[in-house]
């Protein structure tokens, strides 16, 4: 009995050590690289590629929501901008897909400034609803213009070619995505640990104190917003390459909400948490086909439950959980005392 009651503390310590392991990212990369050797049907590859794209989106949104604490409910808009800009350049002007990346980045940055510029000066909850409106504006605009193909969208988007190597097949695309997404995850994580990342977290915890310490909160928030926009836009290019056709219904509020759920469930601000959250959210529907009708209902309830009972998510960021060695010992002693009291 005593053994059993001791185990949560020991399990927690083990879990802590696992969480803080620096090689975790490499393990994740190895899993991603080796996965096609286990199963490589077209279906499996397409599910895995979608999961990777979802990871990239979630990591990008994590910059805005997780690091900086700004709620963006229209994140699919940047995804749409990336997909449409690269799709239009590739199909109508014959650009190779990779060459569209700089233009996509510029477009994402401009969109980020147009939306973030005026609203980041306001209360944070206004940003949430403005981004929600922005997501709708982009989707309806894509639906109405002729250059975006109207309701039927753009089709015939070419695959990715790199130095004459054709990467447009399912395997080539998967490995391209592995490389790009790995870089994106690494980049976001490094950004989160940088000076700018510390400023973001400071703003999230206490904006007024951050301002008082000399941080230009408006510019730092805008930087987070633009960072998220770039990640979303680049993921849009890969999305076009994967599906070869895009249309407005791919970019509804549902997408923005699902990405947000991945971030929130995994743990806002925690890179491994967000990556796992994204994989979970994108692969789960494939495993639970028959429960499709209940899925979004359950997701909604899950969001509420997580916010009430475990706000830091399933795999919290280290900064929130890390305790000094003395505190840890105290906690362990406390647990041990409790365990003794339980034993009759």
């Amino acid at each position: 009995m005593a053994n059993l009651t001791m185990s949560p503390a020991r399990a927690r310590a083990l879990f802590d050590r696992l969480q803080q392991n620096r090689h975790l990212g490499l393990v994740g990369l190895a899993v991603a690289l080796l996965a096609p050797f286990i199963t490589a049907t077209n279906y499996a590859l397409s599910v895995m590629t979608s999961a990777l794209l979802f990871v990239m989106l979630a990591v990008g949104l994590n910059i805005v929501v997780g690091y900086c604490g700004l709620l963006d409910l229209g994140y699919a808009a940047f995804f749409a901008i990336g997909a449409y800009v690269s799709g239009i350049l590739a199909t109508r002007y014959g650009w190779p897909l990779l060459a569209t990346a700089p233009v996509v980045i510029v477009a994402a940055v401009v969109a980020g400034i147009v939306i973030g510029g005026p609203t980041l000066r306001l209360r944070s909850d206004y940003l949430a609803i403005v981004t929600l409106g922005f997501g709708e504006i982009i989707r309806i605009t894509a639906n109405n213009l002729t250059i975006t193909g109207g309701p039927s969208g753009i089709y015939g988007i070419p695959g990715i070619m790199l130095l004459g190597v054709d990467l447009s097949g399912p395997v080539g695309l998967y490995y391209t995505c592995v490389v790009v997404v790995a870089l994106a995850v690494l980049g976001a994580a490094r950004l989160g640990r940088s000076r700018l990342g510390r400023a973001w977290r400071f703003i999230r915890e206490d904006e007024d104190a951050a301002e008082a310490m000399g941080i230009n909160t408006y510019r730092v928030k805008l930087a987070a917003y633009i960072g998220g926009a770039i990640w979303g836009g680049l993921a849009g290019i890969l999305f076009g390459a994967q599906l070869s056709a895009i249309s407005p219904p791919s970019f509804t509020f549902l997408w923005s909400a699902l990405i947000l759920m991945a971030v929130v469930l995994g743990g806002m601000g925690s890179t491994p948490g967000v990556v796992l959250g994204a994989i979970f959210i994108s692969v789960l529907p494939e495993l639970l086909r028959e429960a499709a009708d209940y899925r979004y209902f359950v997701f909604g309830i899950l969001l509420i439950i997580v916010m009430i009972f475990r706000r830091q998510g399933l795999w919290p960021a280290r900064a929130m959980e890390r305790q000094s060695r003395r505190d840890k010992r105290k906690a362990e002693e406390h647990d041990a005392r409790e365990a003794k009291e339980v034993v009759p």
Partner: protein
Amino acid sequence: MTQLLWNGLFVGSFYALVALGYTMVYGIIRLLNFAHGDLYMLGAFVGFGVLSVAGGLATGLGFVALLIVLIIAMLVTGTAGLLLERVAYRPLRDAPRLSVLITAVGASFAIEYGMRLVAGPNPEVYPVRLAGDPVNLLGARITVQQVSLILIAILLMAGLQWLVMGTETGRAMRAISQDPTAALYMGINVDAVIARTFFIGSALAGAAGVMAGSYYGKIDFLMGFVIGLKAFTAAVIGGIGNIKGAMLGGLTLGLLESIGTAWIGGQWRDVFAFTFLIIFLTLRPTGILGERVTERV
């Protein structure tokens, strides 16, 4: 032109009804209740359910039946709002703003897709349709039903105005919006008053849902999404937290949309409204009637 103005006023009165709930909740506990638009949807579906069950009886009685349905729908959505507050928002009242906003998004999702489970993904056709014969007035085609719907809206708003400005509950609401802690010290049951606010706001949204359903004739489980955004826009235009502002904002947005649609085409209507929201937030975030509120640290 008169037709445009009339249409604008008519749509605007729906927006105003939904915006009122938004603005009341925001005014009291500074919470953006994303699920508010979905309570409007819930109201429309409750009305639909009652009318379908009552069947032939309702179509015979017409307008009176609609009034009864309206009251039932208001009671149900009000209770739903009460539950929502108790289950999802009250445990998080002292939590960071971000957590509360995310909870609100989750609540909105749960209501939308919960309703999809109950009623199915396809749009439903309302059994009672208020079309009626139009009457020409100053060049605008106006139906008696439109006038009566507007009258109901005005009645509800007048009732609310009286409730907030003239009763003890209303005084308690205003006190909480100024300082919840002080209100608590003065012997106000803060939790109960907030719950009442949710009930009233949600009931108004439910009423708007039934009215919209019976007027447009078609409802679906996602109908609350855009109207929620529009209602928020209306609340911001009027000055969020301000009850007269929400009414004014709703009518303003209705008129702007009606004129803007005639000018640039119907498919751009929502884009026009949301662009307007962004412009308004940039130039005058406190709205037409709002006062400048300094945020306290």
